């Protein structure tokens, strides 16, 4: 049997809207993935070290406060420094269309704004994780 895909769902910053993060975490778990949820108010340092420690293939950030650009920039840089280049970074939350391109330019693999379908997220992860 194949090992399940390991995913870290993280809530960076002070934003307390965790409904989306938890709902997606449950959906990925139901789809057979191994999901670790960080809880609220995580610094970029904490998220990076959790990703390292848990040896995840996917890091999903959920941001609804509007602070997605600076947070993502910082996270991508730190993950690179820690040698986490291989891990796939996904962003969810209230993300304006115009920012999607900018986030991808930072190295984010895909953006799943509010209202994204579970199956789209699951399919995207499965088809982009090397076996």
């Amino acid at each position, binding site marked *: 049997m194949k090992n399940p895909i390991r995913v870290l769902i993280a809530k960076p*910053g*002070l934003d*307390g809207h965790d409904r989306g993060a938890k*709902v997606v975490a449950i*959906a990925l778990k139901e789809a057979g993935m191994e999901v670790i949820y960080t809880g609220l108010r995580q610094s970029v340092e904490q998220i990076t070290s959790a990703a390292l420690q848990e040896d995840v293939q996917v890091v999903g950030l959920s941001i609804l406060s*509007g602070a997605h650009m600076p*947070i993502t920039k910082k996270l991508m840089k730190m993950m690179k420094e820690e040698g986490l280049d291989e891990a796939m970074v996904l962003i969810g939350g*209230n993300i*304006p269309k115009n920012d999607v391109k900018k986030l991808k330019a930072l190295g984010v693999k895909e953006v799943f704004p509010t209202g994204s379908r*579970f199956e789209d997220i699951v399919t995207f992860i499965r088809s982009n994780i090397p076996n």
Partner: protein
Amino acid sequence: MKKKVELPDVVLESGIKVKPIYGPEDVKDIDYEKDIGEPGEYPFTRGIHKYMYRFRPFTMRQYSGFATAKETNKRFKYLIKQGQTGLNVAFDLPTQCGLDSDDPLAEGEVGRVGMAIDTLKDMEDAFKGIPIDKIGTSLTINSMAPIMLAMYMTVAEKQGVPANEVRGTLQNDILKEYIGRGTWVFPVDPSIKLIGDTIEYCSKYAPKYYPVSVCGYHIRESGANPVQEIAYAFLIAKAYIQHVLDRGLDVDDFVPRFSFNFDIHGNLFEQIAKFRAARRLWAKIVKEDLGAKDPKSMQMKMIAGGGGGGLTIEQPENNIVRGAYYALISALSGTQTMALCSYDEAYTIPSEKAAVISLRTMQILLDEMGLRDTVDPLAGSYYIESLTCELEKLICEMMEKVDKKGGIVKAVSDGYIQSEVAKQAFLLEKGIQEGKIIKVGVNKYREEEEEREIEFHDYKAEEAEKQIKRLKKVKKERDDSKVSKALKELKKAAEAGDNLMDTVIDAVRAYATVGEITATMKDVYGEFKEPVRL
């Protein structure tokens, strides 16, 4: 021979199966005097006042506040000019989490979702020219509630308004912050103690002030169904009340100043019945379980507002229509105060235009649609009365279920409630994605080519810079020896387990910052560790 009609099943969010036709049979066990009662009389099913809106319309109070105190002051004055009758202050996240604007953790968040308050100076500016004795203000603040209350009372005093004339509401409901919203700081026990401190303080000095607004709202916004919303809120309210009773206060000394904040979205009839059931059940709980004698203690006062959870980012103009229905529900449910999430609030902080449309929605209901004319117009409806009884029963059962798990404080501390609410949120989302729960514009009548021209609330980095400068200026000009003395006294009081309000007020007066006061309290209380379970 008649053909048998096959009708689809209808099941409400709370699990109640709806019959196609209700009649006298469904209400035959209801005794009007005992179970419903006249408006303004126990058990208050029909409303807490005899004449309700015919005598005084509900308060209209939109949530607002952003960037700095000065900008917020401008928006307040604008809303008052537009006919808004109460203020509801939004604070930014650093303020809500006890961080100063110059704290590294506050970076990018200063003034983003509300106004930044670092010291008393900011609160003074926010309420400059606003008569605190005339307009009731609601402070949406929780772990920082003692500090903001201290600041607000000090500003009142400076305006020449005595504490016993100050009207308003403090949100001050920490248990729901652990469930949803997430602006907790201290661990559960000291947090409940701090709520006790504010209640005790208000019952002594500010009897017209509502020190706690227990929020089912955010629990439902986090995914709870209507039954969980009311049941968890009542259990939380009971936990605070029990804590204060343990201090030796009499139930009738402070429970009349408890209020609730509930959510509206979903099925119209279910929501109306939910509020009627809640009012009746709360009256019974306070009278029978808590032994209150004063009918005022038994009256469930509420703000019932249209929630963001029902709004959609797709076809956002539809949210104006949803808001109008939510306002109608609120008025038909006998609310004391109404607020609506504005049509753009599914994705941003409301624009001025959107906020005014919400206000006009409520004004149209009152002045054009006849919602003022008569009290509880749906009373006696076979469907509404039957649904009210069913919901009351379900809420009771849900409360018992949590009590069996060891009570609400334990159930929140170990993450049980959070996990129940998340599960419910997942099921709802799954239902929408599978098309079993209809959201217009989302999974039905969707416009695939929809180009969303969404305007987001701008984050002004220069406003944050200004705020940090102001903070530095206040720190430079204040008497530091007074600050350190006040903080020392605060620490002593916290260690001794005394009521902290007096020492917090002294610290605030000396212009100690929110971050300094919080750090002092953290030294004694420690910090909450979030129980993460999926």
